[in-house]
């Protein structure tokens, strides 16, 4: 299991940001995801897209981190979108019964 996590942030304009995640999101790496997500949640953007096509494994700590984005969207009226979920990652969202709560774009990678 990969213990590192890397990110690519693309500011499409001052209101729309894409955050691409590379690696496994686990209890060890999810604090890094939170570090990269927090500035976006507090930064006045209107839409955050989290691209997960390079994430093969995610546990509940990763989902909990993404729930913070969902809370931000509901509180501010912004959009928090997940995309590129692999079959395994999508399965975890389904098991947690959160696949219909998040806005998830596209089919399985």
């Amino acid at each position, binding site marked *: *299991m990969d213990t590192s996590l890397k990110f690519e942030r693309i500011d499409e304009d001052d209101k729309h940001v894409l955050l691409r995640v590379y690696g496994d999101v*686990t*209890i060890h790496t999810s604090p890094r995801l939170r570090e990269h997500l927090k500035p976006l949640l507090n930064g006045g953007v209107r839409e955050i897209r989290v691209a997960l096509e390079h994430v093969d*494994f995610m*546990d*509940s*700590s990763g*989902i*909990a981190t993404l*729930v913070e984005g*969902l*809370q931000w969207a*509901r509180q501010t009226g912004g959009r928090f979108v997940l995309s590129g979920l692999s*079959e*395994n990652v999508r*399965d*975890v969202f389904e*098991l*947690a*019964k*959160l696949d219909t*709560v998040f806005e998830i774009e596209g089919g399985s990678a």
Partner: protein
Amino acid sequence: MVAVMTARAGMAELQSNRVAIAVDELFANIAAHAYNGKQGRVEFETCIGNSGDGGQELIFNFRDYASAAWNGKIEEVTTAGTEVHDPLSPGGLGLRLICSVADRCEHEVYADGNHWRLIFKINDKDQLKDGK
């Protein structure tokens, strides 16, 4: 080790990932709740055994030596099912994932810690189709 055992059990990738999730979540729960994030000893063993009904099962045993007992939380989750009452409150999500993917979750409180057992049925070709 989990991947080796699920491969030996002939599990498909999706089921193998579910087993990995359950093992990962149980380790995380022991670390966070039994040991309160402090360093602690966990003994871990795994085997493939007969299930008693003609099939086989993949078993993971965890033994911790934490003074804090689990307070019956895993039993509460098991009996409560896996419904998400408030999706924006992710507390207990790890335990819900464990209970939704393992065929059995067992927990015993010892005088000097806890014993956990996760059991996954194998040789059940309908397992994934049934949503397990």
